[in-house]
């Protein structure tokens, strides 16, 4: 089941390794993405730490770790084709896979209905 954060990240997966990216709302707000700075595999992060940076033509925006864990894989395709974040935010444009310290942390995140309501409240 896919979960969401208030910072417009999606977290997908059921086991202890989950995939993280940014939502369609986020990519649309950022505009054309020209560079993504991803974390190093093996890096450990706590919820709220700056884990990646997305550079659009306009500006740089931080991406925060949605939960505590260790980075186990990053999306190398973004280096050559950062525009995947715009064209395919929830599939080809994923950022990294993180091994969660506590899978129960997922319960504290929003489901799709709650996220959609969150986004609807922003505009």
């Amino acid at each position, binding site marked *: 089941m896919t979960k969401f954060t208030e910072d417009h990240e999606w977290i997908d997966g059921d086991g202890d390794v989950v995939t993280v990216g940014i939502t369609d709302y986020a990519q649309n707000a950022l*505009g*054309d993405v*020209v*560079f993504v700075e991803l974390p190093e595999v093996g890096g450990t992060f706590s919820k709220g730490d700056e884990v990646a940076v997305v550079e659009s033509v*306009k500006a740089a925006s931080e991406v925060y770790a949605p939960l505590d864990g260790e980075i186990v894989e990053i999306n190398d395709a973004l280096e050559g084709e950062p525009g995947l974040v715009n064209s395919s935010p929830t599939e080809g444009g994923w950022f990294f896979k993180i091994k969660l310290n506590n899978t129960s942390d997922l319960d504290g995140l929003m489901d799709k209905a709650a996220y959609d309501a969150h986004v609807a409240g922003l505009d």
Partner: protein
Amino acid sequence: MSVDELLTTPLYDLHVAAGGKMVPFAGYSMPVQYPLGIMKEHLHTREKAGLFDVSHMGQCYIRSTDGSDPAKTLEEIMPGALAVLKPGKMRLTVLLNDDGGIEDDLMIARTFESEGTLFVVVNGACKEKDFSIIEERFAGRLVLEPLADRALLALQGPRAEAVLAELAPEVKDMVFMETTMITLEGTVCWVSRCGYTGEDGFEISVPEADAPAFAQRLLRHADLEWIGLGARDSLRLEAGLCLSGHDFDGSITPVEAGLAFTLGKKRREAGDFIASERILSQLQDGPDKSLVGIVPVGRAPAREGAEIADLDGNIIGTVTSGGFGPTFGGPVARGYVPKAFTEEGTEIQLMIRGKAHPAKVVATPFVPQRYKRKQA
């Protein structure tokens, strides 16, 4: 400043209707981008033509009180060859302070009035400052008449001439840095062949009441799109054009900012402008630091404020403008470095989020300028 206090241009309703994302800029609510997005707006301008609302900029007439040439008077604080400007000709110049620093850069055009009246356009963020510097320094000698009731549209790109020629075929005869009065759609406009994108194009000063209908008439052309401030910035950066208050400020001389071309040849010989001693000695010996073009080796853009380091990691300067160049196809930046690092090809480093990224000093513009100059 709260959003409520922001000024709007006469074209505000058109921007909102076109889906413009409005942001505060120089005290105005201005479109940073439209639904096309900055990248496509930028590329469209280079391939076809873009329409920019730049009505936030300061427009004025400057006249003399005693029949003397107002351009000659302004030359005290502007080192360009202004007095020699013939009617219908314009020039980019700089407004200097007592130290030879650049308070602003501005366009000065000679009108067709017998008194030699000047039509002047200054940067939006500087207009109050520029106008008061001129009014205070030349009180009793010059009269400055702000043209607050005029919109300013920039029409830029290789198809700009074709778009405007539909309304006024005579614009085909104009060349870069020429200005004239033309009746467009029944309203008298100042049309200048200049711009801030590196492309051929025009800036058109239109009475505010007629501006929306005029803009809509232009936009009927299939090749023309509204372009926002975001693409305006990436276009001017690629073209190697300075952003006032960022690529220079009152502490930077025209020589340091790479604007020595605005110093008239005879003006240099005469040395008859403010702080000429400092500026002329910099011209002769080279300034201690200069604004250079920088291309990062990797893909990470370096933004304004990023530190520039030498290969040993010593901080040697700061990026003043930087971002992604859509036409260039990668990140580009400009910043000040000491004399020893100004040569093309010099290897430096850019500090981005605490990490050093390799970069090289290069010549600007990053993308060639394509002005319509007079045929030799």
